[in-house]
């Protein structure tokens, strides 16, 4: 007999009662004015969670509540009526399994962010219509103009020269991107270059002035074309959204206070992704130089000059370590 309390479902009055589960799969409730004797199939026994009270619900809304979880489990097990709920509560009680689950969650999140997300973002980027690309690109340039960049001070003739160089480089690619060169004074950014979605490539005056050979600028442009072709900016955007969604899925359920704790790993992972993208763009630049019969050393020379200059800090904060990407010793 399992001791507990009975509620008739009509009032909040509690009545002491006793419940028995017979081998004939019948439920017997006694100790109350009208004892009950009903088939097990007609009642709902709540799943056990830790040691919160267990409820047996009758089909007329009456309930029997007991703190004696072990007795209910024993009775159910004797009838072979345990089910999946019995297993989960077992797992929830054990520290070893909780630790394994924690490791599993960490590994799954890591795998998703590391491998799943980049692939999903790349696939999604292919599906995004060019109109959205263009909107993000021009919007991004407006924001950067307002905050980081100033109008270029290069002579108009020089600017036209550079624009036609990019046009000459990108036309044979015929990859559907509308490449456009924008020249700006970099101010805090120093010698720098970046690609926005929609094919806008921004070069700073400082970078143009730093170059000692036209093909060095071409190498940088090829690197940025690589970013555009692989739709890196858009993929980065989608990955950010994906990481945010994952963080919400993992922690959103229990609250937002831990967002600080999520931010750090996200930043680290994103840095890794951005390094991978730089490598992809580098590979494209080197291959392009090779195909054009130009010396790959132009690329290395430019990279190393960027690394050696006074503005190296500014460049490094937006790009991964150059030593990994160019053999500076060989160039000198």
């Amino acid at each position, binding site marked *: 007999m399992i001791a507990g309390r009975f509620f008739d*479902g009509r*009032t909040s009055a509690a009545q002491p009662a006793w419940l028995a589960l017979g081998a004939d799969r019948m439920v017997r409730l006694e100790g109350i004015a009208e004892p009950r004797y009903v088939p097990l199939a007609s009642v709902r026994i709540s799943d056990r969670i830790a040691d919160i009270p267990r409820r047996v619900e009758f089909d007329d809304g009456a309930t029997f509540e007991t703190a004696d979880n072990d007795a209910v489990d024993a009775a159910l097990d004797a009838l072979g009526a345990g089910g999946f709920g019995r297993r989960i509560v077992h797992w929830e009680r054990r520290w070893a399994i909780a630790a394994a689950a924690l490791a599993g*969650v960490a590994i799954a999140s890591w795998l998703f962010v590391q491998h799943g997300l980049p692939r999903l973002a790349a696939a999604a980027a292919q599906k995004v219509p060019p109109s959205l690309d263009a909107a993000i690109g021009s919007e991004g340039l407006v924001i950067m103009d307002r905050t980081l960049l100033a109008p270029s001070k290069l002579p108009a003739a020089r600017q036209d020269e550079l624009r036609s160089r990019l046009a000459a480089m990108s036309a044979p690619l015929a990859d559907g991107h509308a490449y456009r060169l924008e020249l700006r004074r970099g101010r805090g950014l120093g010698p720098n270059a970046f690609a926005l979605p929609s094919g806008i490539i921004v070069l700073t005056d400082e970078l143009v002035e730093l170059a000692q050979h036209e093909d060095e600028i071409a190498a940088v442009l090829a690197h940025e074309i690589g970013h555009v072709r692989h739709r890196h900016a858009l993929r980065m955007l989608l990955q950010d959204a994906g990481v945010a969604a994952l963080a919400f899925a993992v922690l959103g359920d229990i609250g937002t206070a831990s967002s600080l704790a999520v931010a750090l790993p996200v930043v680290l992972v994103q840095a890794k992704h951005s390094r991978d993208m730089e490598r992809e763009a580098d590979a494209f630049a080197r291959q392009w130089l090779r195909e054009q019969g130009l010396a790959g050393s132009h690329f290395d020379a430019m990279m190393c000059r960027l690394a050696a200059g006074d503005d190296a800090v500014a460049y490094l904060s937006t790009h991964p370590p150059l030593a990994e990407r160019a053999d500076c010793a060989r160039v000198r």
Partner: protein
Amino acid sequence: MDVMSAGAAAPAARSTIPFEFRATGAEYFRIWIVNLLLTILTLGIYSAWAKVRRLRYLYGSTSLAGSAFEYHGQPLQILKGRLIAVTALAIYLVATNLWPLTALLLLPVLVFAMPWVIVKSRRFHLRMSSWRGIRFGFHGTYGGALGAYIGWAIIAVLTLYILMPLWIYQRVRYLLSGSSFGTERFAFSASIGRYFAFYFIALGLGLATIVGLVVSTMGMAAAAGSGGEAASLAVTITAMVALIAVVILAPLAIGAYWERSFTNAAYDGLALGPHRLACRIRTGRLLWLYVTNVLGVLLTLGLFYPWALIRRLRYQLECMHVEAEGSLENFAAAAAPPADATGEAVGEFFDVDFGL
């Protein structure tokens, strides 16, 4: 008159009945992490079951007069509601991204949909809660939510936020006086003055902090400029440390004051029939919990969160009790109202945090 019949003839015996809370951070952590892994392995489908287990644990660990509360949410129903909500959300996100103008067009729709979501979410939440086999309920109407959430918001803005406390008051009143237990409605009787008092005190504390920080920063800058010696360096460093402490602690302290005042104003005095709820949270204890919880969460990269939540709940329940007039055995169940299970489960997804 003899003693026994006098006792029996006094039906309204007054008693203080505390809430009991038996949940532990360790148990809650294990439940959370095991179910989270299952959620991930099932690509999110299990999340509805996980949520039900977590809520059942929290409800079932809370008891009053020897009986625990119970959460009755059905995972399949919640899953269905979530699928509908996620689909709607995805359509909205895609549409507004591809055609930014749709956001503008949908804005009025969203404004009018919000009260609907609030009503449904609240109704789901209460209907799925019970004590001693009697369900809670919510009777607030769409019109009531529209007035409390949108109408009073407009009035608050038009009066340059001077009537902001009235907006907060109206929202709490709408949510609580619309709630019921069985056939009995909750009666919300907190004074409006209480809301004005804590709103303007919190506002004043916030402004005082900002002014104090600005003044002391300027003072420090001036001192550093004029002195410039080793002794003044020590003073500057001390002042900097103090400043950082204030920058971090002041918002937490004001937050603790706000939460304590808001929660007390909502629950303290809330009546159900002849019985009254008492809620006396104290700012100092709450601030201590805030500080230790934030430290714990930061130092463990978030793993402490389940403990933080349990500590916070335990403190609130320790501060609450029922001042009962007579027995708690006489509540009667209400006839089940016509159910709109799917609509309510959709509301569940948006599970708006009412701060209640």
